[in-house]
């Protein structure tokens, strides 16, 4: 697994998300209410809408267009119209730096 540096923890609001683009793909990186970090594929599985624009509440992110929702820790689709789970990637914080493993 190769880790790459994505952003600083402080770049993400607590209970928030930001967009991260790498290698021609787009991802969303989340900071949970407990400051834990997670990474998922960036686009909703229902339509290609970026989840980083969605509302993060607790460990849930809601698609900004159609209100489909996912548990961003596991990628599980929680609410229609999203029915396909999101791909997730390992993420960690090292010295205030968020690192993700996208391999």
């Amino acid at each position: 697994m190769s880790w790459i540096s994505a952003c600083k923890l402080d770049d993400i609001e607590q209970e928030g998300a930001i967009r991260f683009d790498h290698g021609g793909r787009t991802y969303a990186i989340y900071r949970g209410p407990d400051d834990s970090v997670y990474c998922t594929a960036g686009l909703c599985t229902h339509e290609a809408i970026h989840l980083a624009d969605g509302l993060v509440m607790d460990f849930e992110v809601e698609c900004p267009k159609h209100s489909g929702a996912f548990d961003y820790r596991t990628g599980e689709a929680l609410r229609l119209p999203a029915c396909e789970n999101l791909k997730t990637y390992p993420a960690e914080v090292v010295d205030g730096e968020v690192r993700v493993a996208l391999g």
Partner: protein
Amino acid sequence: MDGIVIIGAGECGTRAAFALREAGYSGSVTLVGAEPHLPYERPPLSKPMNGAVQMKLICATEALVAAGIGYLPGLSASKLDADAGTVTLSDGRVLSYEKLLLATGARPRRLACPGAERALDFRTHADAEAIFSNVAAGHRVAIIGGGLIGMELASVLRGKGVAVSVIEAAPKPLGRAVPQRFAEKLHARHVAEGVRFHLDRGVVAIGDEGVTLTDGSMVPADLVVSVIGVLPETALAEAAGLATGNGILTDTCLRTSAPNVFAAGDCAAVAQPGGGHIRYESWRNARTQAETAARNMAGAAEIFAAIPWFWSDQYDLGLQVAGLPQPGHQRVLRSAAGGELKFYLDDGRVVAAAGLGLGNSLAKEIKLAEMLIAAGVSPDPAALADPGVNLKTLLKNARAA
């Protein structure tokens, strides 16, 4: 008694069919759709990808089969006998029902002037194909109607290098559903993008050359699209003696005046707790009413109480409106990254919100506004106006209080 029959396989009827299963209903479910395709989403019709009109299915055949939903495409209902509990389809077959859902939607309002038949509608996949397969850069399109659909179409066509004219009978475009401040901003953006507006003018005739207006001027056009609103599809209900007005009238639980017959989506005018009936035309409403109607058909007695919400994308701007802003409401403006938000307060309580900003940048705030509305929060207007005060904090404080 033969299970549940749903007339109309748009977003509402299709969602209701699946929601019946989610509600535990185990009888037969028959979904009848007038169009030849599998049920599809309408919002993507105005967003062709690489020149082709998208056909984004709501569900695949396998999903219908797996849920045990009988789907009858290419058929409409020609007669409803509410006393007998039967509905006759356009191919002559008669279905008896235990419960019936009318999700018949709405049809485009048509112009009545000479040449009206030359104007294309913009409602179905076939309509979208007819428009987008006939336009190319340099063509001239006249759009009659400056509402949300007309303005969305204008933005897509400008993106393709098409010369666009918008003809609107009212003095301003987007007057009906969009807060004035945002309607003006969107109007200005269209002007900056080169859309020509012919406001405060009616249409006299449509001919080979284009559209003749009430002031005698002529808007030259290679293609004319008419988007002057929709009419609820009530003919079946009306002929069956159901109560109708601006839509099929229902009580707060989406029951029509006939026993065991429900209505939801664009065709339904739903009784409001404060009196009167309201009919909504939006993607979200089609789904939420479908879900309430399905649960009620499966035995619940839920009042439909969702907050209306819609969005509109024009150029790189996204408009979202939640709730029903009224002239008497106190307004609070809040600037946000990428745009601005407006809150509407009634006696201190947040009852509606609207936002206009880049792309989906305001979606989070509008969602939080919806939650503030649903929770009946009365925030300090100064805090609401302060971009430094997180709306999530306002919501959590109100919930904790």
